[in-house]
């Protein structure tokens, strides 16, 4: 399939150019290359959460199990990408500012997101009856999603100490988004999204097959 070719070649190219071209941010230096990976991962972590919420709503409305499979798949991938984003962000923070964790608004938000995903799967693990498990976790996914606007708008204003971390990132992203940086960055963003959607699709189909084969039920 043609899009797979584009995905493979494209992401390979992004990887190559992310290391060959000059580092996107001169002050921080080589470590800034992690932008090309860390930000797309964080973006997908959030996208996955939104998708989990949407599929949860669809499940509550239709009670069709395929929606629950989709919600759960999105959440699982969201958890994975949240972990990757947190690790890559931490490494970057250590190299640039000397400490792994600072509780600046972005770090705090990704941490809460991790907790939400963790809670979601803890809940799923604690309910034995299938239908109940799907309904309860769907309600929780939606309810947790409702707090996201607060995370985005309230937390940045509540930071007790004025940490320059985020302003440095933002200011510099505007600053040094020269043409080549922009191309690589946005390509990375787009291609990561395509890759995620592919993995999501596969995860859903595996989940549906599992249900069909093991439990001999139709969705």
């Amino acid at each position, binding site marked *: 399939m043609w899009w*797979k070719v584009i995905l493979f070649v494209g992401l*390979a190219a992004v990887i190559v150019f992310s*290391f060959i071209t000059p580092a996107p941010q001169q002050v921080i230096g*080589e470590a800034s290359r992690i932008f090309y990976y860390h930000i797309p991962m964080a973006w997908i972590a959030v996208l996955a959460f939104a998708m989990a919420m949407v599929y949860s709503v669809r499940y509550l409305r239709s009670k069709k199990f395929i929606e629950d499979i989709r919600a759960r798949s999105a959440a699982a991938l969201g958890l994975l990408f949240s972990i990757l984003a947190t690790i890559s962000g931490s490494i970057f923070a250590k190299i640039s500012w000397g400490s792994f964790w600072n509780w600046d608004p972005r770090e705090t938000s990704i941490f809460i997101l991790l907790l939400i995903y963790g809670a979601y799967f803890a809940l799923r693990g604690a309910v034995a009856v299938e239908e109940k498990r799907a309904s309860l976790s769907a309600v929780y996914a939606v309810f947790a999603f409702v707090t996201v606007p607060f995370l985005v708008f309230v937390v940045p204003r509540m930071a007790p100490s004025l940490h320059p971390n985020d302003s440095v990132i933002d200011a510099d992203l505007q600053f040094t988004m020269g043409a080549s940086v922009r191309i690589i960055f946005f390509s990375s963003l787009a291609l990561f999204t395509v890759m995620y959607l*592919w993995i999501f699709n596969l995860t859903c*189909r595996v989940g549906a*097959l599992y249900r069909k084969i093991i439990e001999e039920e139709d969705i």
Partner: protein
Amino acid sequence: MDGNYIALFVTLVIWVGIFLFLNSLDKRVKKLEKHQ
């Protein structure tokens, strides 16, 4: 500069590995779906 090439190589290998895995998974899932 050398460090960059190592990182580049490692990342490429990881990506190729991921892609090949996803591809084979895709094929296996397609086969299973046909049998249903």
